[in-house]
């Protein structure tokens, strides 16, 4: 796969940052990502709706708990909460992939780890759409996203500590990863203040 799979988000009259915090829209967007990924790769997925709702509730509470309520930090916070969503999805994994399609190449990330790949592209795509709408910002993926070696490490690390998923998300999105306390927005802010050169990427 030379490009990341796209996501055509469900229609909404609300800003995406609001829509994504409604369970119905969130579920529709997630289901659409899986459908589009399935059409492109031949993979199949089964979603546990109840578990997905638990992931969503935990994420909402995480988002509210760490919200800095500082307009100057909005962009950095969108990056952070996107990574947080991925952490929660991988921690409580609400989907299960079916058997690989015939001829699937397991050296490609989507076949090497279908569930992790699906969750990651969903979070990356939603983040990209929100940043485009809120900041008119273009986003791109780093070469690491297309490296099986990275995905192998991502999978191993996330299995033992789901928080590390946030660091890998930052790597794929081109942000400066926070490995020490990835699930603390305060830590990110402190670090970006200490290293102004990193702020451009965060903010």
């Amino acid at each position, binding site marked *: 796969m030379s490009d990341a799979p796209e996501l055509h988000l469900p229609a909404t009259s609300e800003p995406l940052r609001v829509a994504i915090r409604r369970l119905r829209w969130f*579920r529709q967007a997630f289901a659409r990502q899986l459908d589009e990924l399935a059409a492109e790769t031949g993979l199949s997925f089964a979603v546990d709706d109840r578990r997905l709702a638990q992931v969503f509730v935990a994420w909402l509470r995480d988002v509210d708990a760490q919200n800095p309520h500082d307009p100057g930090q909005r962009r950095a916070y969108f990056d952070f909460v996107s990574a947080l969503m991925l952490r929660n999805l991988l921690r409580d994994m609400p989907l299960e992939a079916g058997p690989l399609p015939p001829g699937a190449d397991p050296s490609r990330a989507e076949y090497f780890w279908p569930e992790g790949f699906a969750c990651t592209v969903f979070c990356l795509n939603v983040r990209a759409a929100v940043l485009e709408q809120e900041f008119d910002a273009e986003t791109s993926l780093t070469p690491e996203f297309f490296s099986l070696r990275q995905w192998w490490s991502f999978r191993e690390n996330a299995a033992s500590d789901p928080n590390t998923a946030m660091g890998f998300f930052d790597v794929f999105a081109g942000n400066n990863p926070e490995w020490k306390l990835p699930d603390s927005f305060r830590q990110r802010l402190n670090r970006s203040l200490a290293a102004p050169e990193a702020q451009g990427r965060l903010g």
Partner: protein
Amino acid sequence: MPSRLPLPPIDAAPIKDVARSLRFAVEQGGRSLKKGLPLEALPEPAARLADAALATARRLGDRAGSLAHVLLDGDDTPPPLSHPEEAEAEARFAAAAHDGLRAALKRLGAESCLVGEAAAAAAWRRATRASGGSDGATAAALYLALLDPPAIREVVWPEGATPPAEAGRVVVFAVLLAMLADPAGYRDLIPAATDLALALAGDLSAADAPALHALFDEFRNHV
């Protein structure tokens, strides 16, 4: 010719409850009969008699269902919980709560259930008399009133299935959350509201009125 006095409005909820109870009892009886009677093994005329009894029970259930259906008229959207004084608010709430609770229980996997519409109406009277605050406070009062005494009278789960813990609390919270989120479109919100409520089952188990109010306010914009 003397003009006739207008008839007082009929409270349909108890009549609907009777019809629904009858239907529920007949359906349950039919199920028990089917489970308990080895119809194939029965000799004649016992087999014919059992078949006829089941057919009669089904017809009775259908008639009771039709009666309940005939009585289902008027505005079936719940009143905004911020305006409990709206016209026919009690009856509209009771009918909507009945339908919503059934839909939420089905979402949880219940095979069938019996919900008291008159009990929901009584809960509305108690809660709106007591709360007198915001719609979130009304929802919290309604939640407690719908659970005690319980508006959900019977639930049948599939054989061998483990019912979700706190199913009653979950579905009552779900229905009220859906009504708070969008009274006009609450039916479409029931599946998502039920899944949200299930994820909050731990919070619901010991929540008092202020905690419930806070939970409603926390999640009403996230269905």
